């Protein structure tokens, strides 16, 4: 800094901060801080994601939960090598997402007026994902019982389940009061998201989805592999909380 030169845009009293290492918090504010002199540093300031709690449903009721497990198992069916959506935890993933900030539309713009818009103007309803699931699952349950002699979806068998879902997907089976096709599309997206997200969120249990596709997960360094073209990366996946083998044995 050029000391002594008058400032060129009008001389102002310089308030030099006493010392250089100062982190000033204004008296009347809680969070807004003045940062000067050095990079602010607080111990344990990191913010890792909290692992989901295992245990009962947090958003779904029992009936909804059973339907969801059957649904995610149709969307991602089990095969001899890889579990399906249910055993991979996809319904648990959706449950915890709906019970959390995502379900409540936290942080989104939810001020009125609400008017129906064009598809390319985006979601325009006061209802968030949690309410959409509640309404969607109820309407789906009614439609399902109507078409299968009163049985809920979880009690149907393989082909019957698939036939019903295909009809909803194509828009042939209408759900009353709900856009069934849009609801099912959302369900597919969320189930697949749970399948591929880090296991810390409840799906992709034991990293089954990552193992299935050959994705090494939360690894951070491929310097020794970037130039090895067309060779399969040999290491198994790790999640944010490590590898199942490290934590179990």
């Amino acid at each position, binding site marked *: 800094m050029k000391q002594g030169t008058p400032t060129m845009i009008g001389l102002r009293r310089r308030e030099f901060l006493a010392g250089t290492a100062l982190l000033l918090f204004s008296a009347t504010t809680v969070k807004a801080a003045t940062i000067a002199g050095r990079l602010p540093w607080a111990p344990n300031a990191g913010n890792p994601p909290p692992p989901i709690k295992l245990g009962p449903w947090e958003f779904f009721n029992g009936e909804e939960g059973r339907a969801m497990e059957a649904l995610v198992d149709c969307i991602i069916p089990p095969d001899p090598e890889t579990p399906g959506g249910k055993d991979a935890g996809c319904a648990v993933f959706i449950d915890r997402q709906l019970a959390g900030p995502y379900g409540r539309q936290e942080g*989104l713009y939810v001020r009125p007026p609400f008017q129906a818009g064009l598809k390319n103007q985006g979601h325009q309803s006061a209802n968030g994902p949690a309410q959409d699931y509640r309404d969607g699952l109820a309407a789906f349950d009614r439609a399902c019982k109507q078409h299968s002699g009163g049985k809920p979806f979880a009690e149907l068998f393989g082909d019957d389940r698939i036939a019903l879902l295909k009809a909803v997907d194509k828009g042939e089976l209408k759900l009353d009061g709900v856009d069934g096709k849009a609801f099912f599309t959302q369900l597919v997206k969320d189930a697949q998201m749970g399948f591929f997200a880090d296991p810390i969120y409840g799906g992709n249990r034991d990293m089954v989805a990552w193992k299935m596709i050959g994705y090494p997960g939360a690894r951070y360094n491929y310097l020794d592999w970037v130039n090895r073209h067309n060779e399969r990366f040999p290491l198994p996946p790790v999640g944010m909380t490590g590898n199942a083998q490290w934590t179990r044995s």
Partner: protein
Amino acid sequence: MSRRLPRKDVVIVGFGWTGAIMANELTDEGLEVIAFERGPWRDAPTDFPPGYMQDELRYRIRHELFLRPDQLTFTFRNKMDQTALPIRSWGAFMPPNGVGGGGVHWNAEMWRFLPSDFVLKTHLTERYGAAFLPLDMTIQDWGVTYDELEPHYDRFEYLCGTSGTAGNLSGKIMDGGNPFEGPRSRPYPTPAQAQPFSHTLFGKAARELGYKPFPQPSGNLSQAYTNPLGMRLGPCTYCGFCEWFGCGNYSKASPQTTILPHLIRKSNFSLRDNSEVVRINVDRSGKRATGVTFVDSSGEEWEQQADLVILSAYTMFNVQLLLHSQIGQPYDPVTNTGVVGRNYTHQTISSVNGFFDNKKFNFNPFIASGSIGMCVDEFNGDNFDHGPHGFVGGGYVGQVQTGARPIESTLVPPGTPAWGADWKKAVKDNYLSTVKPGTGVHGSFYAYRDIYLDLDPAYKDRFGRPLMRITMDLKENEIKQNKFLTDKFAEIIKAMGAEKLAVQYRTAPYDITTYQTTHLNGGAIMGADPKTSVLNKYLQSWDVPNLFVMGASAFPQNAGYNPTLTVGALAYWSAAAIRNQYLKNPGRLVDA
């Protein structure tokens, strides 16, 4: 009543790339500088440590590092006769928030614009005649030339440690670089990054088709580098968690890694985080800014007086703050008068995914960096004769696959069901052998009379101020341009050996729900005439000479490249004008 804080020489609104550059330049001049940032403080060790930064759900899908729409959003419509509705959750673009701005979670693709981009209107009319341009197209020259900006491009590249291969060294065309780039005064500070398998295949296929492929210039460093401010960056580890994420390795150029540790030690600099500027204040004459009013996180209002105001809040928020502060005449598309909100543009993006035989190809697509890629520039700007094609503009095409994180990157070939056993099998069979360039086709977006920003009549923000309204659609020129480029790109992906292609053109209407890029431009553009621009060639407001406005809001139209290298170069250019001219004689630097 807002409370007053002691006066400063300079107040900076927003603390991303341009805010940090201006703060460093103006404190070097001995000025007392204070910056306000509406978001939180952010730094690598606390906010993006490798350990939990690799979280696709949190950062990519749930947008952790971005502005919350309940704090501020916009309304959107395609055409002037439609009702604009609020963008309730982000889609087409993602506004940054917090110290470092977009520099935290950008890819760091670092492009210079072409020399002809800066004189676009003149260049195109000279080459093709005025009648070749669509009637309602409102493109303009910038008022600054490539040659004037070159030293500032160079400075920003060396600040960032940019990795690349020069294509034009002082007029000499160099092998392996981009032969179309403007002349550069020296080579890149660090060599190009290594390229994974699919990227090299693209380079090979492009070369065989007669193009001149080159590695994309990258702010993810190929090797350790110490910048002119003494900041050290480490080599990128190709982790693949780059775009949307902060870098835990100090390998990605950002304000945090290149400027802040140096700047923060200066006794004439201070920064307030979690403080949102709501207004630029002007005196009774309306011709002089007196400072800004901001609200802290507890809702309390404060006033910061200053002699010089630097607006560096990002394209959209710059324009919005000008409108809310009633600085400059708002643009009216009907009468074609006014300037604030005029010439708003985005980018024309599309892609082609290639599905390869998994017995022959394994791409390990998760190995990548934010700006890795092999590109060709034959179809950018005016690098080819547009005469026979009936459109203007262009873009680069390239295999720029920035990391195959599995929620977004488990693709299946066209015709596969979207769910069920066949879907699952297809995901398994294709993940390692699919090429999914994020923005494979990265095209220009030129300006039009009825694409603009103004204040919305119905929707309000949390302070009761009107939201800003976006009126935006894709025009025939851009749709033709995109079709042409996408087809060229598809040919190269096919030549790489893909068995199946999924081709996605950009089509009208413009859709606010699907991500394209966060390269928004215009609305407070620079130029030579105050009737058609908000700023002069030094980014100084024509109306309020002690106000300078940084960022891509100054672009009269968008080129076919990512904006930030140009945004940074313009900031250095403007800072030089302030340091060398304005401070000696505060007032208009250009006569109207």
